[in-house]
């Protein structure tokens, strides 16, 4: 029953992602549940905190997701090291986003390492995706 609730909660926001990314989020959800029995679904508000808070990054310096992506996900960002423009993260502003699990996995791994100096947990990754979908 609880699992059903999680799935239905997803389906509200999942229009912003392709079926294989939805599938990936379902896998993340199962892992999160296995790692934490009180897990009851991904939460965009927690994702926002993950996305906007500052941490000691891989380089030992303060870093946030917003350092490159900015706080407005509908706007282009800018790589803070190279200056290269980054297309908007929001799937509404940029329909290419959240259409490939391979890309999603690659960037979540890399960027958690860059900002948090560790790979995110399944719950953290799902929360972040939930936040991106809402924007």
């Amino acid at each position, binding site marked *: 029953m609880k699992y059903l609730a999680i799935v239905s909660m997803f389906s509200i926001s999942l229009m912003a992602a392709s079926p294989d990314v939805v599938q990936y989020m379902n896998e993340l959800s199962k892992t999160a549940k296995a790692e934490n029995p009180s897990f009851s679904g991904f939460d965009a508000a927690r994702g926002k905190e993950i996305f906007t808070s500052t941490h000691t990054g*891989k380089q030992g310096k303060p870093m946030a997701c917003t350092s490159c992506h900015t706080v407005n996900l509908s706007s282009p960002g800018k790589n803070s090291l*190279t200056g290269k423009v980054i297309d908007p993260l929001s799937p509404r502003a940029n329909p290419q986003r959240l259409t490939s699990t391979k890309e999603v996995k690659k960037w979540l791994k890399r*960027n958690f390492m860059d900002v948090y100096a560790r790979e995110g947990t399944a719950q953290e990754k799902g929360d972040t995706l939930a936040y991106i979908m809402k924007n």
Partner: protein
Amino acid sequence: MTKLLNLSVAALIVVGGICLYADDDHEEHVRHASSFVAKPMTKQEKTSVALYQKECGACHFAYQPEFLPKRSWDKTMNSLNNHFGTDATLDPAEHKTIQNYLAAHASKYDRMTGMGGEIAMRISQTPNFVHEHREIPKKLVIQEAVKSFANCASCHTKAASGSYREREIRIPNYGSWE
């Protein structure tokens, strides 16, 4: 006779063309870069170039492999988990494709003479690069529109196509470099 004349005119044009080309300064690397562009690519090579440009070009200018020798690219590709302070790890199959592409098109020259045995990780460390850019004032390099020597295309307007001719240079907030 006319035929012979035509031939010699054609020969003159060819020789003249070569002289003109050679006359353009600072072209050593350009010739390497364009020779790779000009050669017809196999389907597999086209896929590799596209992958290289997509993956590496996502964060920075996709430097022509001709700018560094194989051992520099190997060192870079073997340390992508800490690539200039960021995680740039790739899926293993794509990693292999890109590493092979870089090796196949790497500079045939050492390019690191005078570096005391160090393996260059940055093109901007190589003596040829340092020499070519020695007169550029630092403020033009570190300005926001350029940021660093890593952004070839912010001044070399045809860099993406592998051309670095002096007459194509437009430095932001400065202009041509004569």
